[in-house]
Structures are given as structure tokens and as C-alpha cells.
């Protein structure tokens, strides 16, 4: 794990003590103050270059286990990397949370409606039961990952949510196909995109609402859902109850939560969060560049992580070493994972395939540790032949990080 998170007790108690000392010293910085007041049960170091790098950990959000706190309101919570060592499905109580605007904290199920309008034959206003009865119920295992996952590791650093690598999770989503919901209204000729809005709205008049759209051909895919189930449970409110969009292979920004409006567009989407933000350069840029061409962030590239060992962990000299972790293919199936390092390239064994868009376990047994393993990492390659790069192309918003994440293991 490049971010150095550790589930071991030593790390936890050290940070706890430091937080307490910081509090006793008068609390010059925010993170220790947060820890002292909100939590009192620890801090975690995300290893963000140049800092500030420590964040509070808390189990105090409703329905949540211990999570890394980036923001209290609206909630932005990160999954500790240690969670990903436990399995390829991320439990709901450890799944990352990200809201752009204030989220409602209650839902009246009988009153909730999903308006389907725009370029349709007949606009409709659907109840939750109407949505659930719109078509066959479908399960999809898919990774939900923030476009800014890993932004805190950008060098040079960029502003925005300062995530480590835990703004991702994989769940089994249950719902109906978006195309079946669209059919209730009937898509009109000339449809180009489908836009979604939820119940989270700005606090200030005139500020842009968080609305997002996807191309019509993506919207009509068999695995793009209006979902109400997450890992066999109703969607938790923090994850968008009662309904959210699921777009397997695409970044989370399109998976609109607390879905209330579906709008079919006949042209480009000029709304703020599509036309102005969540965009990436079309060609490599430097921090000095201005005015370059950008496109909306969309499909996810492959990524992989070592979860069995944290950066700096000690391994036994002369003994076998079992390494394991998780990997994803992004918008295509995972094809292979290799452990790479100086003079090292070893194919890893892949675990069960739970679906094209889910995490997959990888394992590797090294028969004998003969010395330190410096700057090792895993490199995922997907079925389209896209492979993780050795160097991260910088972009001004720190989107779509997928560089090979490196750690050092010390033999003794």
C-alpha cells in the first residue's frame, strides 16, 4: 500500500497519542483538533507528499465502521486501505462516501418521485414502485471509484478533495435497467445524452446543481442500472437511498445518488459539472500550461494494489513470501497482474472472476526472500491491452490516477 496505512495496533496507538499531545499543546492545526473533538480514537497518515497528511478516523457516521474523515458536512469519507485486504467486495459500512452538495438526511418513500423528461414521447413521474416494476431485476458487481481517487498523491499537489487511494469500493448493485425506466417515457428521436439529478442541491441560489450526463449508447447498455440494492441491502442514505445510477466501468461522478430526475438531451450537455469540471486534458500537460483542450472524465483505467503489506513492512529473510492484493481492469476485464520492481517482473495468480467490472484478488508466492524488495508494485493490464503506467501523467485536477503504486519491504 503506497499510502502506508496500517491496521496494526502500533500504528494506531502512535497516532492516537500524537493526536492527544497535539490537543494538549493548544491545537495549532486542524487535523489534531478534529481528532480531539470529533473522534478521540485515532488518526491515520495518508502519506500525502508535503502534507498535511494526517486525517481523523471515526466510526461515528450512521451505518459506518471506522472511516477516514475528509469532510464532515456534506460527508466525504475514505475507506482505509486495510479494508481492501479482506475481500473483493467492500462492505457497505466501510464503503467511501462523497457528496458535492448538502445531502438530505431523510427520505419519504411514498412521496419520492423520479421525473423522466426531456426528449421523450411522454414525460412521466414515477413512484419508487413504478421504478422497481419497470423491468427485470438485475445484479451487477461493479467498482465505484471517485474520479479524484488518489488526488492527494499528485505532484505537484493540486487543490480539491485530498484523497488517498481509498475513494473506491466494489459492491453488488441491484436494480432495474436504466433503459427500462427510460421506456416508461419513451426515448424520442435524436436523443444524444441522458442526464441525472438527485436530491442534493446547492445552498445558494444560482450555484450549479450537481447534475451529470452520459451518452445515450452508454445509457442503453444492459448493465447500466437504476439501483436500490447494495450488497443485498437497501442503499444506505449515505450512498444515495432510495435510488442511484450505476454505470459499470465509469467513474463514480456519473453514479448520481438520491435520483430524482432523468432527462434525455438531444445535444451536448453544457451544465457545469460536465462542461466545466470533471474534465481531463486530451494530451499531456504541465502545471504551467493553460487553455488546453479537455474532455469529460469517463471510463476507468486499470489499477492494482498490494494489500497484504504496507509500505515499510518487515519481511522474513530466507523465508517464502506470500503477497496479495486487489486489481481492476477498469472499463474492460482484467487480463493480468504482474509484480514489478528493479530487475523484477513476475506474473501473479488471479482469483475468482466475479464480473468484468469488479475487483479481482491477485496472489504471488516468492519461494525465498533473498533481500529487501525496493520499490515494488503491481501492474494491472486489461483485456483492451491498457496497462498501468510507471509514471503518472499530471493533470490539474488530479483525476484518473492509475500509476503503479510502489512500496518498500525490508528483509531481516
Amino acid at each position: 500500500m503506497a499510502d502506508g496505512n496500517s491496521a496494526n495496533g502500533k500504528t494506531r496507538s502512535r497516532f492516537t497519542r500524537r493526536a492527544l499531545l497535539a490537543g494538549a499543546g493548544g491545537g495549532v492545526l486542524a487535523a489534531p483538533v478534529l481528532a480531539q473533538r470529533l473522534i478521540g480514537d485515532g488518526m491515520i497518515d495518508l502519506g500525502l507528499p508535503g502534507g498535511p497528511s494526517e486525517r481523523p478516523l471515526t466510526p461515528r457516521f450512521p451505518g459506518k465502521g471506522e472511516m477516514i474523515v475528509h469532510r464532515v458536512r456534506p460527508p466525504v469519507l475514505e475507506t482505509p486501505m486495510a479494508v481492501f485486504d479482506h475481500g473483493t467486495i467492500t462492505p457497505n459500512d466501510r464503503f467511501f462516501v462523497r457528496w458535492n452538495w448538502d445531502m438530505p438526511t431523510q427520505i419519504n418513500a411514498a412521496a419520492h418521485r423520479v421525473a423522466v423528461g426531456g426528449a421523450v414521447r411522454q414525460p412521466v413521474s414515477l413512484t419508487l414502485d413504478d421504478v422497481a416494476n419497470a423491468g427485470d431485476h438485475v445484479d451487477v458487481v461493479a467498482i465505484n471509484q471517485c474520479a479524484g481517487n488518489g488526488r492527494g498523491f499528485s505532484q505537484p499537489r493540486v487543490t480539491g478533495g485530498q484523497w488517498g487511494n481509498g475513494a473506491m469500493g466494489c459492491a453488488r448493485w441491484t436494480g432495474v435497467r436504466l433503459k427500462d425506466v427510460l421506456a416508461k417515457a419513451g426515448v424520442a428521436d435524436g436523443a444524444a445524452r441522458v442526464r441525472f439529478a438527485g436530491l442534493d442541491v446547492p445552498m445558494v441560489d444560482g450555484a450549479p446543481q450537481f447534475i451529470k450526463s452520459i451518452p445515450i449508447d452508454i445509457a442503453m447498455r444492459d448493465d447500466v442500472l437504476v439501483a436500490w440494492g447494495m450488497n443485498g441491502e437497501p442503499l444506505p442514505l449515505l450512498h444515495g437511498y432510495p435510488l442511484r445510477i450505476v454505470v459499470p466501468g465509469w467513474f463514480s461522478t456519473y453514479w448520481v445518488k438520491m435520483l430524482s430526475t432523468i432527462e434525455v438531451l438531444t445535444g451536448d450537455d453544457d451544465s457545469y459539472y460536465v462542461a466545466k469540471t470533471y474534465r481531463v486534458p486530451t494530451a499531456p500537460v504541465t502545471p504551467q500550461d493553460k487553455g488546453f483542450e479537455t474532455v469529460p472524465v469517463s471510463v476507468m483505467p486499470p489499477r492494482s494494489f498490494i494489500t497484504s503489506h504496507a509500505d515499510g513492512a518487515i519481511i522474513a529473510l530466507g523465508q517464502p513470501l506470500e503477497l496479495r492484493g486487489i486489481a481492476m481492469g477498469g472499463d474492460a476485464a482484467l487480463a493480468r497482474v504482474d509484480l514489478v520492481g528493479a530487475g523484477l517482473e513476475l506474473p501473479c495468480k488471479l482469483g475468482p472472476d466475479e464480473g468484468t467490472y469488479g475487483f479481482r484478488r491477485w496472489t504471488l508466492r516468492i519461494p525465498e526472500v533473498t533481500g529487501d524488495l525496493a520499490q515494488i508494485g503491481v501492474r494491472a493490464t486489461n483485456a483492451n491491452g491498457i496497462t498501468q503506467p510507471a509514471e503518472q501523467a499530471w493533470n490539474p485536477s488530479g483525476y484518473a490516477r492509475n500509476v503503479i503504486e510502489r512500496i518498500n519491504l525490508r528483509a531481516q
Partner: protein
Amino acid sequence: MKHWAIILAVLLAGCDSRPDVVFVNAAITLPDDPAELPPGPGLQAVVENCTACHSPSTMLQQPQVPRAKWESMVSKMIETYKAPVDEQAIPEIVDYFVAVQAAQVANPGGA
């Protein structure tokens, strides 16, 4: 007895193929955000203009960036996000974050 078991199994199988979905009312209570902003020049301006929308946590977890970047961030809040920020307060807001970040870098341990 056996017959009942079979009938039950058939009913369950029927449920499996198209499970009923029941939507109920739901509510949660979010924790308070008690984080305090550390003292610094312009603290009052930040409290009055920024904290309605931003947790202190988010503002203080940003990486150290130059003054010009803080100025552009405040402008973005006003122009794009329509934040009702007092124009007179902008230099004080920027002063505050530049000073707090300098203190963070000088004293990364926090104590």
C-alpha cells in the same frame, strides 16, 4: 408435512426470481463538525464568509499553494458557486490561509 415443504420451496423460488422491493422511510443524523479554525490574521473573515458551506476540515487539509491560487479559489467560490462573500473580505481570507499554511509547514507535528 413434506407437501408443505415443497409448496414453501416453490413460493421461495418464485420470490427469488423477482423479489419484492419494499421502500420504507429512512432518516439519519449526521455528526456535528466541531473542528475549530486555528487563530490567524483574517480568521473572522473566514468564519463569516466561508464556514456556512465549508467544514474547517476541508479548508485546512488542502496542500500548501501560492497566494495566487487561494485568490483564484475565492474568486471561483464567488463567481461559479455564487457564494455571498464580502468583496472587502477577500484579502483577509487569502491572508488567513497563506498564514495558516505557512504555520503548518513550519510546524508539521501540530503541537
